[in-house]
């Protein structure tokens, strides 16, 4: 690359293909030039290879989500080759005895065969389901990271919104996927979904009828529709949004925690190539490995045991996937407050927990960056992250809100808890009705206080070096930090700019930008660098 690139754009344009012996550089060099000739990517490509990734473990959470999605697509494509999206009634003649001769939908039959007959099918199916659970979980935890460190602040509000949309779509697609096999549990879930849509005032009936092709259970069109939504429409939107998410990430560059050499106007870490690319490729393989391992060893959704969906039967283990459980919990503890009057009915006992609550939840998520800027008056751009303790109020509020959803999650097992604790269902129900308001307040308050305490302690959270305590002959005690042992971590150096390709090199390295490159100081003392 070096010799060719050095000639830059003035490279002679030959009309004939040079003889093999005259061609310069390696095959890779020449292919890069070939591409650059046609697309002009050398400059941007070089910048991209130099992109800096701050090293912090919490930045891996988003990667887990991304790589789970890759696994979802890969395993999902495998599933589509066997799964038949049809509710046509067929009779099972396979080798699994408990189902022999049972009537079932073609969808259910194909999922049973996929699990029990197709070689490696069960691992793929279970890995797909595990990947969905991990996907949503990783997004949620990643979102908490972004929230508690203030990474959503200007200029990253848009990417926060993209992230919230991704979370919504992941949950929606997970629920739809769960409904595809047509087993007893997922069928019950669909029935509840129909009722939830039905509960929307004014338009609910129409929406439900349009989606299902008629009154529940519809005219058999719902499974094919859910299928195409699940395997094409939502994944395509998710893929596009992930693209937008990463584009914004590159455009706005990473945030970073405060530390030696780290300022608002730089990013410190390791470069895209080779450090990050190797690490992240390896990490993709590890995430895939863990999900496949779960698929191989941890049974999930054994639909052949649940039996096919029959509208008048129900399984006693009606439990949705974990990311739907907060809605289920909300449905359980909501009092039966149906509104009826003026010739109309609003089933508030369904509308409030299952329509209004998620609406408010995601509305609040979308609005948070703007609300926070409004209330703190801080409209400045931020690239250095907060530690959660630096913002006791945000941390307290966030912890309280999280606690609210955790309690709702817990409320989805009222019956299990009642059985387990040998108390009446009524007692459990009322406890949750109280807890759902009390726990968030307590948790929020504690988080607030703890943050304030921690923030007041200098050096808290840093790993401490051993102290050597000595007693003098006079009986005095002297404490002194021990010498760092060899290999107690690498010493901190001032960061060095990655290979530079602009005259700003020395200036950036020395922390001040000169006139010939910098113009106009930005709002937070960030200077603009012209490329």
């Amino acid at each position, binding site marked *: 690359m*070096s010799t060719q690139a*050095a000639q*830059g754009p003035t490279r002679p344009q030959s009309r004939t293909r040079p003889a093999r012996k005259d061609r310069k550089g390696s095959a890779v060099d020449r292919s890069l030039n070939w591409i650059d000739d046609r697309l002009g990517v050398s400059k941007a490509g070089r910048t991209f290879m130099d992109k*800096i990734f701050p090293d912090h473990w919490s930045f891996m959470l988003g990667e887990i989500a991304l790589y789970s999605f890759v696994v979802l697509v890969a395993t999902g494509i495998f599933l589509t080759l066997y799964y038949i999206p049809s509710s046509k009634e067929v009779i099972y003649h396979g080798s699994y005895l408990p189902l022999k001769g049972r009537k079932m939908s073609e969808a259910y039959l194909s999922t049973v065969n996929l699990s029990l007959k197709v*070689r*490696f099918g*069960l*691992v793929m199916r279970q890995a797909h389901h595990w990947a969905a659970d991990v996907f949503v979980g990783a997004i949620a935890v990643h979102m908490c990271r972004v929230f508690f460190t203030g990474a959503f602040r200007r200029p990253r509000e848009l990417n926060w919104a993209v992230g919230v949309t991704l979370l919504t779509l992941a949950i929606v697609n997970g629920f739809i996927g769960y409904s595809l096999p047509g087993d007893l549990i997922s069928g*019950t879930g669909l*029935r509840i979904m129909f*009722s*939830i849509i039905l509960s929307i005032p004014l*338009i609910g*009936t*129409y929406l*439900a*009828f*349009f989606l299902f*092709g*008629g*009154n529940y259970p519809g005219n058999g069109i719902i499974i094919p529709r859910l299928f195409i939504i699940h395997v094409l429409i939502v994944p395509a939107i998710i893929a596009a949004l992930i693209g937008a998410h990463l584009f914004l990430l590159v*455009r706005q560059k990473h945030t970073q925690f405060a530390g030696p050499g780290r300022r608002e*106007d730089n*990013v*410190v870490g*390791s470069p895209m190539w080779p*450090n990050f690319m*190797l*690490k*992240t490729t*390896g990490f993709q*393989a*590890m995430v895939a*490995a863990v999900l496949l391992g779960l698929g*191989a060893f941890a049974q999930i959704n054994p639909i052949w045991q649940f039996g096919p969906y029959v*509208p*008048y039967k129900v399984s006693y283990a009606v439990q949705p996937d974990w990311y739907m459980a907060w809605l289920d919990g909300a449905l359980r503890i909501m*009092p*039966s407050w149906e509104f*009826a*009057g003026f010739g*109309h*009915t*609003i*089933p508030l*006992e*369904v509308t409030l927990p299952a329509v209004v609550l998620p609406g408010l939840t995601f509305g609040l998520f979308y609005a948070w960056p703007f609300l926070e800027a409004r209330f703190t008056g801080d409209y400045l751009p931020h690239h250095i992250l907060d530690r959660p303790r630096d913002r006791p109020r945000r941390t307290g509020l966030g912890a309280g809100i999280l606690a609210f959803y955790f309690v709702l999650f817990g409320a989805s097992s009222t019956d299990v808890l009642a059985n387990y604790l040998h108390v009446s269902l009524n007692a459990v129900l009322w406890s949750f009705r109280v807890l759902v308001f009390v726990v968030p307040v307590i948790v929020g308050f504690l988080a607030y206080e703890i943050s304030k305490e921690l923030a007041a302690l200098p050096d808290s959270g840093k790993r401490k070096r051993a102290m050597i305590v000595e007693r003098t002959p006079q009986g005095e005690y002297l404490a002194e930090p021990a010498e760092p042992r060899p290999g107690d971590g690498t010493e*901190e*150096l001032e*960061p*060095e*700019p990655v*290979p*530079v390709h*602009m005259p*700003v090199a020395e200036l*950036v390295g020395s922390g001040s930008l000169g006139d010939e490159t910098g113009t106009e100081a930005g709002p937070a003392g*960030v200077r*603009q*660098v012209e490329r």
Partner: protein
Amino acid sequence: MVDHEELARPWTLPPDDPRLQPYAKNPARAEKVIAACFIFAILCLAAFGASYWQAASERVMGGFLAVGLFALGFGIAAWGKYLTPRGPFEEPRHILHGTQLEQEAFQAAVVERAEVVIGRRPFLIKLLAMAGGITAVVMAFPLLRSLGPLPGKSLFHTPWRKGSRVVTASGRAITVDDLEVGGILTVFPEQAPGSAVAQTLLIRVATEPIVTQPGRETWGPAGYLAFSKVCTHAGCPVTLYEEQFQQLLCPCHQSLFDIYDGAVPVFGPAPRPLPQLPLMVDDQGYLRAQADYDQPIGPGFWERTTT
């Protein structure tokens, strides 16, 4: 301007700068560990291939693949962490917004041009807005309306008719002698066995007629009571019968319905009683419906009128 000399040089630090040294304290050892990972991965992945060929169990296949992939990934990631320049490196962060001049030029381009071509034509703007609006509305017809039938009155009726014979899911007609006291059965009208909407719980609580509510004097002949099985909360089938308390339990969110009291909800989120189906016994002893349910079954919806 791009400096081509700079472009040519991949790394601007002197080769012995600590930042260019690998992160590993002992790179030779790290290399050995990574090599071991790769060898192990190769073996496991080959074993996956072999086990697939031999149709081994799903666990064995999945296990080999997962462990092999993990070792491979671990090796690559360790390579990226321990054998690459340890840094730290830095890149400048650019301000995203343009200069004030650039911003003004952009605003001018958008606003002034709009002023020129659009601002002076308010009439066209109104027409365009109307056209846009009507496009949105008419596109909704095929996109939404074709998806399914209008609800109409369909939520207000079930397939139960006056005189419908009460049958099982497989279509067998029920006679007055079929259930013992305490017996329970899921039944349907003869014209729609298995129907999700018409599913009904038939319970025999006694041998003499049962009245659950005023006005329902004739609805429970020979101790038979019939209630819609569709929960009034979110539509799950109400399947559990607690004979001791004469209650029905919905397994989804634990609503409890009191049978003797006309299945009014006594616990849980369900807002309304399960509608009761008026029964009768015909001359040959078959159970029949006197009529359809007197109110819409199942969960609430906007058009449902108060009863």
